[in-house]
């Protein structure tokens, strides 16, 4: 209520202000001896001087912000690739700032200097081919340098990873990140989104997970049998819209079931071992300093973007389409805290592609450890592989022998 009053008050004051403006407008129009199309000398000089003043303000603002915040608001780069990016970025920023100062200076200085003065006629100067050639060739030469340096760096940071790079997967969904370490074999197991269930949230592909997904799709809660039962129940009356929804749902699930059965028929059990030793990690991503990482990305629902501001790297995660990046962290979290003089500092992985209401909260802390610390942490995860968590102890008997599974699929 109060706010409405205030706003009404503002409207009233605004109306009064406008009526005053009208009076000023009309009075000045009457007093003036010249029309609006003739600009008085005084106004002309004033604007010319303001042009120069604005240039000073603009340059001053830039220099002030530079001194206060600098180009490195997020601290020095914390990866090998990031350092080469930063070197190039600094070079470009220097160049670009020079162009900014030079051209803006010419523009505003000329605006000030060549204001209309009594008795001075403008200089008729329609063109000069030499000058025009000059400002075609010079920018072209500068750009050639920028392009060559840029593409060198681009090829370096996007090229293939070294053979010994550690494979790691980052999985994105509204609104969090999950990491998957590839375990002792350094190979990530295969996945499929159709295998996602409450106990297999990343949809890892083994004979057992395929079976349990088929099972869930047919007999589970909201599964095909249940929907059919509701649709075929003659004792209840369903609204048309509900019938439509259920039929659509049934159609989708039957299609998915067919695909799952196909998957089962072609599944290669020999690859299951790559899945079993994978380690799933939420909340915090632990990395080892000075080790090259080959990261692959998947997305469950919409496009997200894996953005590591401190490593200066970024890659979209796209549903149905795998993406990758590489980087080598070269400063541990502890080192960075010392450099930034900020004992609470953390590296972070943020989402940088609009993905829904809580987009801004979608992040994962990243900790870069010394090799010894990292190995110790990894060891503590040793008994939390996918196999350990998916088949809680006594694990062995629960797994159907793979050969049998294949045989059932054939039948």
């Amino acid at each position, binding site marked *: 209520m109060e706010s409405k009053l205030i706003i009404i008050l503002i409207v009233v004051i605004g109306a009064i202000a406008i009526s005053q403006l009208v009076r000023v407008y009309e009075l000045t129009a009457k007093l003036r001896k010249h029309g609006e199309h003739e600009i008085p000398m005084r106004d002309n000089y004033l604007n010319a001087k303001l042009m120069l003043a604005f240039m000073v303000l603009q340059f001053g603002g830039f220099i002030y912000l530079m001194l206060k915040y600098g180009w490195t608001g997020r601290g020095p780069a914390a990866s090998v690739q990031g350092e080469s990016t930063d070197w190039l970025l600094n070079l470009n920023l220097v160049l670009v700032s020079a162009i900014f100062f030079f051209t803006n200076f010419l523009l505003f200085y000329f*605006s000030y200097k060549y204001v209309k003065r009594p008795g001075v006629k403008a200089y008729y100067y329609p063109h000069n081919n030499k000058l025009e050639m000059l400002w075609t060739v010079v920018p072209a030469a500068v750009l050639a340098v920028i392009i060559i340096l840029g593409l060198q760096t681009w090829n370096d940071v996007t090229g293939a990873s070294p053979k010994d790079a550690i494979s790691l997967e980052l999985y994105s969904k509204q609104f969090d990140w999950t990491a998957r370490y590839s375990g002792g074999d350094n190979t990530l197991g295969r996945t499929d989104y159709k295998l996602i269930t409450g106990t297999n949230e990343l949809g890892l592909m083994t004979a057992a997970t395929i079976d349990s997904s088929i099972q869930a799709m047919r007999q589970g809660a909201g599964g095909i049998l249940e929907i059919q039962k509701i649709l075929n129940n003659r004792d209840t009356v369903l609204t048309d819209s509900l019938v439509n929804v259920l039929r659509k749902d049934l159609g989708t699930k039957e299609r998915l079931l067919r695909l799952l059965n196909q998957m089962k028929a072609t599944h290669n059990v020999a690859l299951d071992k790559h899945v079993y030793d994978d380690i799933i990690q939420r909340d915090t991503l632990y990395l080892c300093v000075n080790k090259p990482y080959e990261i692959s990305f998947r997305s469950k629902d919409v496009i997200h973007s894996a953005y590591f501001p401190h490593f200066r790297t970024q890659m979209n995660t796209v*549903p149905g389409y795998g993406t990758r990046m590489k980087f080598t962290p070269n400063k541990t979290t502890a080192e960075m805290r010392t450099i930034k003089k900020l004992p609470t500092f953390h590296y972070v992985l943020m989402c940088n592609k609009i993905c829904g209401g809580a987009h801004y909260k979608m992040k994962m802390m990243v900790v870069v450890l010394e090799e010894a610390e990292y190995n110790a942490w990894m060891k503590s995860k040793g008994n939390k592989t996918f196999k350990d968590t998916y088949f809680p102890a006594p694990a062995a008997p629960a797994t159907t022998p793979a050969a049998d599974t294949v045989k059932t699929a054939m039948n």
Partner: protein
Amino acid sequence: MASTAHDVHSHDHHEHHHEESFVSKYIFSQDHKMIGKQFLITAVFMGLVAMLLSILFRIQLAWPGESSDFLNFFLGDQWAPEGVLKEDMYLGLVTIHGTIMVFFLLTGGLSGTFSNILIPLQLGARDMASGFLNMLSYWFFFLSSLIMFLSLFVMNGSIFGIDIPGDWGTTGNGPAMAGWTVYPPLSALPQAVSGSGFGMTLWLFSMTIFIAGSLIGSLNYIVTVLNLRTTGMTMTRMPLTIWAFFVTAILGVLSFPVLLSAALLLMMDRMAGTSFYLSDIMVGSEMLSNHGGSPILYQHLFWFLGHPEVYIVLLPALGLSSEIIATNARKPIFGYKAMIGSILAIGFLSFIVWGHHMFITGMNPFLGSVFVFTTLLIAIPSAVKVFNYITTLWKGSIVYTPAMLFAIALVSTFITGGVTGIILADSALDIAVHDTYFVVAHFHIVMGMSAVFGMFAGVYHWFPKMYGRMMNNRMGYVHFWITIVGAYGVFFPMHFVGIAGAPRRYYDYSVYGEFDTESFNMIMDLNVIITVFAIVAAVGQAIFLFNFFYSIYRGPAAPQNPWKSNTLEWTTPVEHIHGNWPGALPVVHRWPYDYSKPGAADDFIPQDVPLAEGETEH
């Protein structure tokens, strides 16, 4: 050929000379001058809406989570309960702000208004090639504006409680919320965000109609420029404004249909269960069976329009400023032919650079390198244009009309925003700043500020032609200085927010407090400063609005050629008449930039003045 077309047209004109009714004169008018004004007023309204939306989300960014009566007043209890903006609506505000500014203000408003008013007048034509199509193009624009505006009020799948008949996705709250680029899958899945229901459907309908209108308009502009030039108006005697509108129209005709196809495929994914952009998706716990589509396909289609769109917005502004700078510096534009060449080069290059918006989508790095190369090439014609503007000012005799101030400011923002483009075009550097506030700063300065300044310059300069009256200069000066200081104050610090790593489209940067208090303090400080400047700049626009609307009715009468300009529009009578020239069409004898020509009595020689004896053309 041009003159034959004219004869036919002028005969038509004389045969149909009759009193016009109110409806045919002011509403369903086929007169290009009236249609231009209709575009302008509609766009000004849409621009104000978009500006208000930006103030609403800037308040949230500067003072996150604090209760604001202002937010509650405009957004109600549904979207700002207790005066705190809801997360979803933040995205809705950002999305519609961007959509309106880019398409409705700077495409429809800028090119629609000035192409309509200036093409026939500066070419010496009685009207557009097709008055009827021209009228349609406005009414399509009006309808799409209306739908986009109404989409802000979607609630529970209906507007103001009125259900839309039919099964058009009657779920969802609020307008589209997937960003102005509406990338699927977010925009395709109503389950993913509340704005991807009915709000998104309206967005797609609105844009489809907008594109149809834009195509009709552009075709008309192209045909008019090619066929209806008066005697003597060769292509190389056309003012640079017309060159800019001409190339803009060609860009529109070649690129908007691609956006239309992108929108149609998205509609099919949403309504007909197709999988053009969808594959292997699970939203929440709902598994979709869509398979084989690619969200990246949408991005390719979108940016195939999206990048030329930047120049559809910019070229008209640059064209207007060329004319205004030459007139008010009392000098010929420097390097007229090079300026035409630059416009053509920019227009061509703008079609082969779209991939620079997609460096980090996972596309082949080699393809990325190609786009780096083509994108950076655009800097060359842009540099030529800038230096030509500067040389035009050199040794000029500058008259500071409000239009001239805005035109010079446009060159400044074109430089300031353009140079950061060099960094963003460089894929290796783009990785570090992609989708951060650095990008927001870049495109708001180079495209937003430049085009808006061009539009203001155009309004101040051609207001006497549009309404037969003069605007108040003093108010124009105050408006200009508030606007340029305010706008730079908003967008310049954003570079630093971006360099600090702040992603765009974040509802609240308080999350930084959890991992980097240093960046947190910097971002929060700058956000407050930016919002204060934004509010000042927004309030400053009231001066313009007052000056504009008041002068329409009460401004002093305009003389025939107030700025002592050379172009043909100033040879028409101040009072608008259908057919533009009461007698025969003017005949053109020279280029439009004979300002301060040695040997001439005046410091300007209009285009319809024959060459004096012994005088050579420029």
